[in-house]
Each structure stands twice: as structure tokens, then as C-alpha cells.
């Protein structure tokens, strides 16, 4: 290597570190920029009526996204009910049951599944639930969301269980506790907050998803609580309003986006800040 003077090396270092700092600052700055813009535009649209009413027909002032907020909660809730048992038990399989290449294959598939575009999973839900039943439904959206949640829950469950010292498990077995009791009564309770963090993060992820809903939940202008029917969902409402040609709907889209960001951030920060320290202690 050619000798370079210290001065020049220091200069290059300063330039390099400065560039790196600029990049990191820029990326964080973009978040603040987008967040600030959504708050500025959205805060004006939010009112009591916006949070409690269903959409009004175009031309009629007022109206809100209450049905979308409730719809999001229902769809994500049902998805969580489906994904939690399957995901966490598969996580248990990976730590305590599976061995060798089959176990690695399951883990690999879970990792790959986390990168499959949500729209492809929406198509799957369409072909197995919507097309055979002949109608759009909130339940089919939950099915798609459950598949999207699975990889997150599987990975975090596995990591949370691996965080519990193996000696604890061995001690239980040595005392004659059967394997299933050792897992359900000792390992899982110890790993609980880690698993809950994963579940909440998975819920945050799907709350912001829109693509699969286009041909599963489909959206609705009315109050709808029956999961067997098409249902409104907040992110879908934001999408529909945003690409519409009406100015009043654009304003509502910003309002909806603000509520959506708020919901996703509460879930995310909640999972990271509130639950994680408990898990570490």
C-alpha cells in the first residue's frame, strides 16, 4: 500500500465520517419530515365526527372513518387469534422439538415467507376463500394477515425461548417434569414478554398493510361488524380517498393517515419500550 500522509488520511476520515453522519441524519430527517407533514395536514381533518361517523356520500360534508378503525381492529384481531397459536407453537417446535435439516428448512421458509409480497398472499386468500365462497369478507382479510404475521411471531418466539437459559429446562427435566409441562409452565412463562413483543410487532406490521385488503375485505361505506361480509379498513380507506379526484376526500385521507400512523407507532413503541425491558431483566 502506498504511504499516505497523516494529514491526508485525517482529511479523508473526516470526509467519510461526515458523509456517514449526513446519510444517517438524512434518513432520520426524512421520517421527521413525513411525520411532520402528515401531522400538519391530518390534524385539521380530525374531529369528533371524523372519529365517530361513517363516510358520507361525496358532496355531503362531514363523515368519518369510524367504521374503518373498528374494521381494522376486527380484522387484525381475528388474524392474531389465528396466527398466535400456530406461530408460537411453531417457534416451540424450532427450539425444543425440531432437529437437523428439517428444522432449518422450517426456519428458512419462515424467513423467506417474511419477504413474500403481501399482495401475493392476498391473491392466495382470494383463491382459497373469496372465490369458493363467492363473496368478499373480512375473514379472508384476516386469513391473509395471519399469514403475514406468522414469520414475525415464529422468529420472535424462537428468540425469546432461546433467551431462557437452557439449564432451567434441564433442571425441570431432571426433577421429573415431563417435557410438555416444562415448556408450557416454565419456558413459555419466562419467555412471555418476548413473545408478546413479537405478537404486538406483528400486529403493527399488518395494521399498516393495504394491498391484500383490495380483494379480500374489499372495503365498505357502512357499519359492518360481521366478519363474513365485506368490511371497511382504515388503510384501505386512506388509499381509496387518496386516489380519488375529490379534494374533501384528500383531506380525509390525511386525517386517516395520521390515525393510522398513530396506531402503528403506539403498537411499535409499546412493543419496544414497554415490553422489552421486562424481558431483559
Amino acid at each position: 500500500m502506498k504511504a499516505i500522509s497523516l494529514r491526508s488520511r485525517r482529511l479523508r476520515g473526516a470526509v467519510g465520517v461526515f458523509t456517514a453522519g449526513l446519510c444517517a441524519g438524512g434518513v432520520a430527517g426524512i421520517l421527521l419530515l413525513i411525520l411532520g407533514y402528515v401531522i400538519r395536514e391530518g390534524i385539521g381533518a380530525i374531529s369528533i365526527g371524523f372519529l365517530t361517523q361513517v363516510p358520507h356520500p361525496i358532496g355531503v360534508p362531514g363523515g368519518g372513518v369510524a367504521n374503518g378503525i373498528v374494521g381494522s381492529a376486527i380484522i387484525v384481531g381475528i388474524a392474531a387469534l389465528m396466527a398466535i397459536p400456530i406461530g408460537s407453537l411453531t417457534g416451540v417446535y424450532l427450539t425444543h422439538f425440531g432437529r437437523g435439516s428439517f428444522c432449518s428448512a422450517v426456519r428458512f421458509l419462515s424467513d423467506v415467507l417474511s419477504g413474500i409480497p403481501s399482495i401475493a398472499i392476498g391473491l392466495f386468500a382470494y383463491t382459497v376463500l373469496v372465490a369458493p365462497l363467492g363473496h368478499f369478507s373480512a375473514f379472508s382479510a384476516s386469513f391473509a394477515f395471519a399469514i403475514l404475521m406468522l414469520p414475525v411471531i415464529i422468529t420472535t418466539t424462537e428468540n425469546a425461548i432461546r433467551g431462557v437459559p437452557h439449564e432451567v429446562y434441564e433442571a425441570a427435566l431432571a426433577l421429573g417434569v415431563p417435557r410438555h409441562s416444562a415448556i408450557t409452565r416454565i419456558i413459555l412463562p419466562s419467555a412471555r414478554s418476548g413473545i408478546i413483543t413479537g405478537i404486538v410487532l406483528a400486529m403493527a406490521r399488518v395494521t399498516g398493510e393495504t394491498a391484500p385488503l383490495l380483494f379480500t375485505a374489499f372495503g365498505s361505506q357502512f357499519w359492518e361488524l360481521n366478519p363474513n361480509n365485506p368490511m371497511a379498513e382504515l388503510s384501505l380507506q386512506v388509499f381509496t380517498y387518496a386516489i380519488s379526484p375529490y379534494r374533501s376526500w384528500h383531506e380525509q385521507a390525511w386525517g386517516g393517515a395520521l390515525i393510522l400512523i398513530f396506531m402503528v407507532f403506539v403498537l411499535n413503541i409499546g412493543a419496544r419500550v414497554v415490553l422489552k425491558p421486562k424481558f431483559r431483566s
Partner: protein
Amino acid sequence: MESSRDNQPSPDSGLPAKPQIGGEATLAGMVESPAFEQPVRMPKVAAGTAFDALVHGSTLVFLALVLGLFVELLWSSRQSISTFGFSFLWTSEWNPVTSKFGALPFVYGTVVSSAIAILLAGFTGVMSGAFLAEFCPPRLSQVLGLLIELLAAVPSVVYGLWGLFVLAPLMRVYIEPFLQSWFGFLPIFSGAIYGVGMLTAGVILAIMIVPTVTAISRDAMAAVPQSQREAVWALGATRWQGFRMAVLPGARAGVFGACILALGRALGETIATTMVIGNRPAISASLFAPGYSISSVIANEFTEATTQVYLSALIELGLLLFVISVIVNGVARLLLWKVFTTTGAQ
């Protein structure tokens, strides 16, 4: 776990410790946590079998879902596959009226917009990751790290909304005319300016995937052993040289994996792309021109598809997206696994 009345020990339950000992065993003295203070009652063997069955069953359900996803997409697109064969991939006519379907404009749009995204986000993300892992105080690194991870959590419809109403006008009025005035002789920066188009889609995708690149390359760099840095510093290297000579080579596979993983995200992103790419099924040399992507044509046309072969062609696009992302993510995960298991990090 519910214990059944059945007392017969199951012959195939491979339990390490058969619960033949009656009565109760307590683990309270072992671990000081409320969870352990209750006595552990010895359930019947059948409960163990049931738990085994549940765990294995869940894993099988998971595998069936992943396999079913592929099989179902393949099966539902059979009509399109048998009608168009491989020409589906390289013909560019997309005409529902005459039932002629070719995916080339969409493949082009997906590839070009994702390529722009990874070009912009790759360098920025790796440099941000380097700053967080190597050059900034831990406290600042945590704050910036949290911000960047939140950037990853922003719903894509919000990015789309911002892209449509803020970024697209900005591109139309300032950035694209600027590029055209300086580099207009290049075909990619020539032609009419619309605001929405391939370049805008690429920029939005870049913003969406940069947190992935940042977070994973930061972790990969942090996983490089400290002794490697110290060795280079001891030879008189500056912090920056230490980064270039020790950290970056050590984290190369991880950084590469991060970029491929982010590329996978960009390829499949739907809603934000749909809102800013322009949605015109044409292949044009100019990046300012509107385009179309695989995912956005599915999003826009699926519920309006009237004929079986139309629907089938759209599902085949979904299958194409699925196959591409399995390959891309598979490669990325293999790279990342190697990095994070050999260095002993998580």
C-alpha cells in the same frame, strides 16, 4: 394443557422423562420468579402426547400454508400459463378486450423502479449503518436507530399519500427539470415530465427500503469482532481507515444480504408504487415517463377482471412475484445466516 382421563401411556411419545412419579414436584426454590412458585402438578401422559401433537400440527399447518401458497397460485394461473406459455414473460401487449396478455411492461417497471431504489438506498443505508455502528456515540445511535426503525414501520399507504401529494409535485417542478437541464442528453432523462413516473416510484421505494439496509448493515458491522478494529488501529489507521480495512470487509456478506433483502421489499411493494408510478403499461427509455409494476397492475385490475383468462393472467403475475421474491429472499437469508451464525451474533 388439558389432561385427558386416558391413563394409557402412549407408545410413541418420545418424552425424555415419563411422568410415572405421582404427586407433586416443586421448582419454587430453583428460580425466583412468581411463575415458578406454583407447584408443578404432574399431568397425565396423554397431555404430553396432545402437546406434542399440537406443536407438530402447528408446524405442519405452517408448512402447508407456505406450500399451499405456491400450489394455489400455480393452479389458479394454469389457464394463463397454458394459453401464453413463456411468451407471457416477453410480450408487451396487455389487452383485456382481445384477451392478449404479456407481462413485459410490468416486469420492466418492477425491475427499473426497484433498481433505482436500491441504487439510492444502498449507499445511503450502508453509510447510515456505518455511522450508527462505528462513528457515533451509543446514545445517539439508539435514538437514530429507533427513528430509522420507525421509518420502516410507517404504513406504505402513508408513503404513497406523501409521494403523491408532496414528492410528485416536487419532482415535477424542481428535481426532474433540474436533471433534464443538466443531463437531458441522456435518454433516461429526456422526454415529457409528469411528476408521477418511474423515477418518483424509485425514490419512494428508496425511502421505504433504506431502514432495512441501515438496520441490517448496522447489525452486521456491530458483529465484526472488536479485535479486528484494534488490530488495524494499532497499525496506525484512523477510525475511517479502520472501518474501510477491518469492519467493511468483515461485514461484506451481511451488507450485501441487507441490500438484497431490501431489493426484495422493493420488488414486491404494492400500494406506494401504485400511487406514484403512473400506471401506464408502456416501456419507455425515460425515467420521467409513467410506468407500471407487477404488483400495481394486480392491485388496480384484479377486482375489475371480467374474464377467466384475465383473472388467471393476473394471478400468474402474482405467481411471478412470488417466485422472484422467494429467490431474492432465499439468497439474502442464506447470506445473512452465514454472517450472523459464524460471528456468534444473534
